[in-house]
C-alpha cells in the first residue's frame, strides 16, 4: 500500500525522529479506518478518500503532533539526565561513605594540593596581576639609570639626563622626575611631633599616572615657581590618620619640618607612588639643579616615570632611550660616560625582585598539586580495579559503558569539589600565615586576599583534577571485557600488564616530582644558610637603633647638629643599662647614601671613572659600639689632633678593590662629583666589612667619614645595652624631649629585629618551599606505599601459585623488590631532569651554593630512597607471608 500520508514540501523544522513516529501512528490510524470502511462494503478507492476526509487537515494535525512530541522528547531527555545525575550522586556519596578511609585521604590530599595553590595564587595575583592604581597602567614606564659596567640596572638619573631625554625623545607623551629616595620629615601635629615619609615629585607625575585627587587639586607647575607659596599634597591614609579625614583640610596650613605649607589636595585611596607608600608629596623643582654646573650632571639622584605615546611599545621606547643615552655619553663623557638608561614597565619596577620567588613558589605549589593528583589517580585506579567485578556485572546486566564512565566521573568530581571546598578553607588559613610572614617582603601595592578570581581558580583546579583522575579508572573500566573479566575474577588472575604499568608510571612520576621539589627546597635552604652564616661585620645583639628627625630650619648649622648629637649621646650614655652609644647618619643595614670619589694622584680607572660606594657619617665611638673590627690604621679617635682633618675610613672590600697594592692608608681621595672639590681627605683606617644588605652574601664597599666633619646626613643613634634594647626606647624618648620636645623619634628598633625583617624576603621562599617539599614528601610517600601495596596485593594469587609450585619466599621478595625498584629508579632518573629544570628556575635566588650542590641533591635523593624503600618493604613483607593454601582456596 502506498504511504497514505503525503510528504510535505519544504524544509523540515523538527528532527525526523518525532516526525517519523507521528507518521507511523497516523498511517496506522488511516489504514485501520480504510480497512473498516472496506469491511462495511465500501469500494477501496472511496474508502481511502473517505478515511482521509474523516481525518480532516492531515498536514496540520501532523505538524501539531510532531511539535508536541518533540517538546515531550526534550523534556524527557532532561528528566532522564537529572535522574541519572541524582542516581550517580547518590551512588557516589554512598560509595564514598562505604570507603571512608579512601574518601578521607582523597579529600585531604586534594584539600592540601588545592589549598596550597589557592593561597599562593592569592599572593601571585595580588602582586603580579591585580590592576595598579593608575589609569591605563600598562602604558606607564619607569626610567632608570643603568651602569654600563653591569653593576646596576636601577640606578638614579641626573637632572641633566632627565631634562635632555625629555627634550629630545619622541616615545613618551610626558616624563616626570621625582627624588629617587623617599625621606622623612617631621610633621608637628596637634598631638606632638611625627615622622612622615615624603617624596618630592614634579607636578606632571600625577597627570602621567592618570591620578585624580580625592579632594582639592594635585600639585601644579605653578607650585614650583620661584616664590610660590609652599604647598603639600596628602595621601589618603595620612589624611585619615593625621587629619581625621577632615573634609575642610584643603587650604589649611600645616607645619612640616618647620616650614608652613598649605594643603592643596588629598590623593585617592589606594594610590601607590613609584616609590611605594608615602605620607606627603611635595613639589620638586629642577631649575636650581639644572643651573648648577656640577649638580646638573654630577649628581645622580632622580627617578622618573613616563607615559608611552599611543602605539609605541616598551621595546621601541627602550631603543630610543638607549640611543639618547649613547648620545649623552659622547657629549658628556665625564658624567654620562658610564650611564645608559633602562625603560621598564612600571609594574615590573614595583614588583622588583619578588617576581622570581613568587613564580618559583607558584611552581612548587603546582608540583604539590600534581603529586596530589597522581596520588588520587592511583588510589582511584586501585579502587576501580577492586570494583571491577561490580562494574562488569553491571555492564553484563545492561548498564551502558558511557553511563558507567559518567558515574565514575561524577564520583571523582564529588570528591574533587569537596576537596576543593576544604582546600579553599585551608587557603584562607594559609594566606593569613603568609600575610604575617611575608608582608614586609612584598611590594606595597599587594593587598593579600582570597578573592573571586582565586575562588574561580580553585574551583577550576578542583574540576580539572576531578576530570583528570576520573578519566584513568573510567578508561580502564570501559576497556574491560565482561566475559573475560568475570572469568579472571573468579579464577583470581593477576592484574593486567596495562594497569600495572599505569601504576608504575604514577609511582615514578611522584618520585620524580618530589625529588625536584626537595632538591629546590634544599638549595634555597643552603643559600639562606650561607647568607645567615656569612659574617655580618658587626654584632647586632642587644643594640637599639634610633633615628631622630632634625628639621633643617631649626638646625641650620653644622655646629648645631653636631652639638645636638653630642648632647643626646651624652645623655643616653648616662642611662642605666647602656654600655656604649654612638651617632651615625644611618643605622647599619639602612644606609642608602652613596658617594663618588677619585683617588688623588692615581690614574683614572678605565670604565670605572668615578666609583660609587656606600657613604656613612659616624661618631668616634661607632666602630667600638657595634663591634666592627679595626683591621689597620686608626678610627676617628677623640684624640685626633685639633685642626687636623679627621680623615676617612674605608671598609676592607673597598680597600681591596680600589687599592689592590694594599696601600690604601695614607692615600688621599677626592670626594663628590666636582673634580675641583677641595675636600681631599686622607684614608686613615681600614675596618671590617659590614653587610648593609643582609640578604646578600657579599658586602658592598663602604666609606666612613666623621660626622663632626659631615653632620648633614641623617641623625641616628646606636645604643649597646646590658638589658633588653627595647626597654630603652622610652628612656631615650624622654632624654630627647628634654633636649627638644618638638623632635620625633623614628624607627626605634633593635638591630636584631631589623636584621630579621631584612631577611624576610629571603627566608620566605625557603620556608614555603620547604613546607611544600614536606607536604609533597608526605603525599608521595603515602601514594607510593599505597601503589606498591596494591601492586603486590593484585599479584597475591600469582605468588601463591608460584609458592605452591616450589618458588622460594626469597624469590617472591626479589620479584616484588625488582618490580618496585625499577619504578623507583625510573622516578629518580626522571627527578634528575626535574632537578635541572628547578635549579634553572632558582638560579637567581641561589647564593653561596652551586646549582648542583651535592649536599642538597644528596639529601633529597636519600630522603626519597628511604621513604620509597620503606613503602616498598611493607608490601614485600606481606607478599612473603602469603599462605598459598588460604589464598588459592
Amino acid at each position, binding site marked *: 500500500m502506498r504511504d497514505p500520508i503525503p510528504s510535505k514540501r519544504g524544509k523540515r523544522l523538527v528532527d525526523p525522529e518525532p516526525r517519523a513516529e507521528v507518521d507511523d*501512528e497516523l498511517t496506522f490510524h488511516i489504514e485501520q479506518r480504510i480497512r473498516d470502511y472496506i469491511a462495511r462494503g465500501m469500494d477501496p478507492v472511496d474508502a481511502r478518500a473517505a478515511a482521509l476526509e474523516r481525518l480532516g487537515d492531515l498536514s496540520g494535525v501532523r505538524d501539531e503532533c510532531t511539535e508536541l512530541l518533540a517538546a515531550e522528547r526534550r523534556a524527557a531527555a532532561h528528566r532522564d539526565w537529572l535522574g541519572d545525575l541524582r542516581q550517580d550522586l547518590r551512588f557516589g556519596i554512598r560509595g564514598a561513605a562505604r570507603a571512608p578511609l579512601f574518601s578521607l585521604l582523597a579529600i585531604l590530599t586534594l584539600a592540601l594540593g588545592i589549598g596550597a595553590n589557592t593561597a599562593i595564587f592569592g599572593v601571585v595575583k595580588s602582586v603580579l596581576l591585580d590592576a595598579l592604581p593608575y589609569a591605563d597602567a600598562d602604558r606607564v614606564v619607569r626610567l632608570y639609570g643603568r651602569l654600563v659596567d653591569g653593576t646596576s640596572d636601577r640606578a638614579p638619573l641626573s637632572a641633566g639626563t632627565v631634562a635632555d631625554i625629555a627634550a629630545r625623545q619622541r616615545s613618551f607623551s610626558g616624563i616626570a622626575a621625582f627624588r629617587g629616595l623617599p625621606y622623612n620629615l617631621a610633621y608637628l601635629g596637634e598631638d606632638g611631633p611625627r615622622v612622615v615619609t615624603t617624596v618630592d615629585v614634579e607636578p606632571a607625575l600625577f597627570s602621567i599616572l592618570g591620578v585624580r585627587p580625592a579632594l582639592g587639586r594635585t600639585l601644579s607647575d605653578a607650585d614650583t615657581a620661584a616664590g610660590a607659596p609652599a604647598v603639600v599634597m596628602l595621601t589618603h591614609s595620612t589624611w585619615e590618620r593625621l587629619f581625621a579625614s577632615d573634609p575642610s583640610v584643603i587650604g589649611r596650613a600645616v607645619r612640616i619640618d618647620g616650614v608652613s605649607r598649605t594643603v592643596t589636595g588629598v590623593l585617592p585611596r589606594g594610590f601607590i607612588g613609584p616609590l611605594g607608600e608615602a605620607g606627603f608629596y611635595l613639589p620638586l623643582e629642577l631649575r636650581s639643579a639644572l643651573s648648577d654646573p656640577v649638580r646638573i650632571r654630577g649628581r645622580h639622584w632622580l627617578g622618573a616615570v613616563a607615559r608611552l605615546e599611543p602605539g609605541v611599545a616598551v621595546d621601541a621606547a627602550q631603543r630610543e632611550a638607549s640611543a639618547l643615552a649613547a648620545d649623552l655619553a659622547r657629549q658628556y663623557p665625564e658624567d654620562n660616560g658610564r650611564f645608559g638608561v633602562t625603560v621598564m614597565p612600571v609594574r615590573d619596577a614595583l614588583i622588583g625582585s619578588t617576581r622570581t620567588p613568587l613564580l618559583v613558589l607558584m611552581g612548587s605549589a603546582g608540583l604539590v598539586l600534581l603529586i596530589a593528583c597522581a596520588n588520587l589517580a592511583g588510589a582511584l585506579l586501585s579502587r576501580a580495579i577492586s570494583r571491577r567485578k561490580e562494574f562488569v556485572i553491571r555492564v553484563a546486566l545492561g548498564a551502558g559503558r558511557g553511563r558507567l564512565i559518567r558515574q565514575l566521573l561524577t564520583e571523582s568530581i564529588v570528591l574533587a569539589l569537596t576537596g576543593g571546598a576544604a582546600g579553599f578553607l585551608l587557603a584562607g588559613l594559609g594566606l593569613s600565615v603568609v600575610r604575617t610572614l611575608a608582608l614586609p617582603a612584598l611590594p606595597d601595592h599587594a593587598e593579600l586576599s582570597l578573592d573571586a578570581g582565586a575562588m574561580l581558580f580553585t574551583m577550576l583546579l578542583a574540576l580539572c583534577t576531578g576530570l583528570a583522575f576520573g578519566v584513568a579508572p573510567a578508561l580502564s573500566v570501559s576497556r574491560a571485557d565482561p566475559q573475560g573479566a568475570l572469568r579472571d575474577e573468579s579464577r583470581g588472575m593477576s592484574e593486567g600488564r596495562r594497569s600495572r604499568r599505569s601504576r608504575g608510571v604514577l609511582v615514578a612520576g611522584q618520585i620524580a616530582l618530589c625529588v625536584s621539589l626537595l632538591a629546590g627546597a634544599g638549595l634555597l635552604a643552603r643559600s639562606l644558610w650561607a647568607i645567615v652564616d656569612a659574617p655580618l661585620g658587626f654584632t647586632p645583639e642587644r643594640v637599639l637603633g634610633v633615628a631622630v628627625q632634625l628639621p633643617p630650619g631649626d638646625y641650620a648649622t653644622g655646629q648645631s647638629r653636631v652639638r645636638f648629637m653630642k648632647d643626646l649621646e651624652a645623655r643616653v650614655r648616662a642611662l642605666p643599662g647602656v654600655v656604649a652609644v654612638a651617632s651615625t647618619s644611618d643605622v647599619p643595614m639602612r644606609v642608602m647614601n652613596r658617594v663618588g670619589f677619585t683617588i688623588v694622584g692615581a690614574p683614572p680607572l678605565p670604565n670605572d671613572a668615578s666609583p660609587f660606594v656606600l657613604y656613612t657619617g659616624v661618631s668616634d665611638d661607632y666602630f667600638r659600639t657595634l663591634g666592627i673590627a679595626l683591621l689597620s690604621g686608626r678610627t676617628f679617635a677623640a684624640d685626633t689632633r685639633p685642626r687636623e682633618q679627621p680623615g676617612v675610613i674605608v671598609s676592607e672590600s673597598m680597600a681591596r678593590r680600589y687599592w689592590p697594592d694594599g696601600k690604601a692608608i695614607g692615600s688621599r681621595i677626592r670626594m663628590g662629583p666636582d673634580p675641583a672639590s677641595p675636600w681631599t681627605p686622607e684614608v686613615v683606617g681600614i675596618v671590617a666589612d659590614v653587610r648593609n644588605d643582609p640578604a646578600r652574601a657579599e658586602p658592598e664597599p663602604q666609606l666612613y667619614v666623621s660626622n663632626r666633619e659631615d653632620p648633614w646626613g641623617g641623625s641616628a643613634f646606636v645604643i649597646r645595652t646590658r638589658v633588653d634594647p627595647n626597654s630603652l626606647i622610652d628612656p631615650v624618648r624622654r632624654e630627647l624631649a628634654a633636649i627638644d620636645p618638638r623632635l620625633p623619634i623614628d624607627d626605634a628598633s633593635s638591630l636584631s629585629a631589623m636584621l630579621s625583617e631584612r631577611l624576610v624576603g629571603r627566608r620566605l621562599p625557603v620556608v614555603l618551599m620547604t613546607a611544600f617539599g614536606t607536604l609533597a614528601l608526605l603525599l608521595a610517600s603515602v601514594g607510593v606505599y599505597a601503589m606498591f601495596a596494591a601492586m603486590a596485593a593484585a599479584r597475591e594469587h600469582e605468588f601463591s601459585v608460584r609458592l605452591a609450585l616450589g618458588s622460594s619466599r626469597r624469590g617472591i621478595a626479589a620479584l616484588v623488590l625488582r618490580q618496585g625498584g625499577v619504578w623507583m629508579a625510573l622516578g629518580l632518573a626522571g627527578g634528575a631532569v626535574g632537578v635541572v629544570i628547578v635549579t634553572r628556575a632558582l638560579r637567581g635566588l641561589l647564593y653561596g651554593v652551586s646549582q648542583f650542590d651535592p649536599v642538597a641533591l644528596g639529601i633529597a635523593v636519600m630522603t626519597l630512597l628511604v621513604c620509597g624503600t620503606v613503602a616498598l618493604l611493607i608490601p614485600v613483607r606481606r607478599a612473603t607471608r602469603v599462605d598459598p593454601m588460604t589464598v588459592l582456596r
Partner: protein
Amino acid sequence: MFANDSGLLQGTLELLVLKTLSWGPMHGYGIASWIESATGDVLRVEEGSLYPALYRMTRKGWIKGEWGVSDNNRRAKFYRLTAEGKRQYRDQTSGWRRFSGAVSQAIATTSAPSWAR
C-alpha cells in the same frame, strides 16, 4: 448535535480518553472507535483533534505511549494510563458527574421561578 460541529469540548474529549484507557492500553484508532460505540454513535470523535489531545495528555504525564502490535498484527502505538492519569480519571469523573447532574437537575425542573409566575 455534537457530531456536526467540532463540538466535543477539549475537557470532555480528555475525560473520554481517560475513560477508554481505564479499561486497558489502546491505540488511537481503538480509542476513537470505542468512544463512538460507547456513546451509541452519538458522539463522533473529531480525529483531527484526537491525536493532538493524546500528545498533550502525554506531555502532561497522564498517559504514556508505547509501540506494540495490534490485533491484526500491525505495529501500533498503544496508550495507557499513568498513575497521575488514573488520579485525573477519578477526579474528572466525579467532577463531570456533579456537573452533568447539576445541569440535568436544572433542565428537568418543572416548577417555574417566582418571577415567572
